[in-house]
């Protein structure tokens, strides 16, 4: 696989949320506004790329028997780094994302990429893989959070785009809206990929 293929793979064919459907908790919980969705997406890109690079660089020194605990420590360390940086420099976003920042550590996509890709590939390839998967995650977050913000609030990034007369569909930013809209989004993706194949 060339470098671009690796990147594209994460965004489209193996998109973590829309295709693999892992790491759903944060996806459902914090996508109430586009800002939150982007913030969470960028945080995941940072942790995923960082841990992929380190794990790939250390792959010759980490014995097979203890690789899972080693991965967990490295991923937890990157999560804490992001946690501290966001707490210090993007305080309002930090408060909005709350417990879901430390919970990046149990986002299955990160451990899965460490195990399936970074532990067996070069540092550069692993970095690209992390970036691709991360961007795929970000794209899904952007789709879902903009849909929820537009429907539930009539705004995008805080700017009103629907006319005042539009009665915001409160349900979209409440918990049920998260489930239903993500379900529909996955349905649309299924439909598109089936049509492409046919």
């Amino acid at each position, binding site marked *: 696989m060339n470098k671009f293929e690796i990147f594209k793979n994460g965004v489209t064919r193996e998109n973590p949320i829309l295709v693999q*459907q892992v790491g*759903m908790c944060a996806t459902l919980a914090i996508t109430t506004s586009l800002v939150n969705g982007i913030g969470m997406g960028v945080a995941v890109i940072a942790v995923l790329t960082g841990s992929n690079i380190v794990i790939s660089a250390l792959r010759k020194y980490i014995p097979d028997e203890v690789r899972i605990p080693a991965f*967990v420590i490295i991923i937890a360390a990157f999560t804490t780094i992001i946690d501290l940086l966001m707490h210090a420099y993007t305080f309002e976003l930090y408060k909005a994302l709350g*417990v879901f920042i430390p*919970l990046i550590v*149990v986002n299955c996509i990160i451990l899965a990429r460490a195990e399936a890709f970074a532990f067996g590939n070069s540092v550069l390839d692993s970095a690209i893989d992390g970036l691709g998967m991360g961007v795929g995650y970000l794209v899904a977050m952007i789709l879902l959070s903009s849909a929820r913000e537009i429907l539930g609030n009539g705004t995008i990034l805080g700017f009103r785009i629907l006319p005042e007369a539009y009665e915001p569909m409160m349900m979209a930013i409440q918990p*049920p809206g998260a489930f239903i809209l993500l*379900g529909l989004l996955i349905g649309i993706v299924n439909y598109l990929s089936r049509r492409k194949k046919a």
Partner: protein
Amino acid sequence: MELVSLFITSFIVNNIIFMQFLGTCPFLGVSKQIDTAAGMGIAVIFVITLASVITYIIHYAILVSLGLEYLQTIVFILIIAALVQFVEMFLKKSAPGLYQALGIFLPLITTNCAVLGVAINNIIYEYTFVESLVYSVGISSGFLLAIVLFAGVRDKVDYADLPESLKGSAISLITAGLMSVAFLGFSGLQL
């Protein structure tokens, strides 16, 4: 009385799945049959409660007193992983029957964000030890309730005549959304 209201709030009103979205992965993954869903739910109650007690003690006895709160994420996740391993070994040896029933779910629980989420929430909400215990039992019972109800509905959905594209996880999420509407009704509950 406050403890009772804390229990009901965390059990139903702020239901872990339908309101807080913690533990959605096993919720969607292990809910094809009611039996397995119930097994998973009981295993989760067991692990969450045990993990909350241990992380709570370690947080206040070690991390806070040494000023190492920033290591919380690493320490908690390692404790949870080790705990799950330990419980698995213990059950295998001393309660083979229970191990048969719950064993296959245990490894899945390590990456269940509900466990870490509850452990961290206990600290964020500044619960006392007893409150955190009640909260953990309430939240994890909420998980059991949600996953069993959901498995029951899903049984029927499988036989429904659906557009191909919506089959599988798409319709599962939409179903969960509709159940979440029902749980939203509890949010006006004043306790």
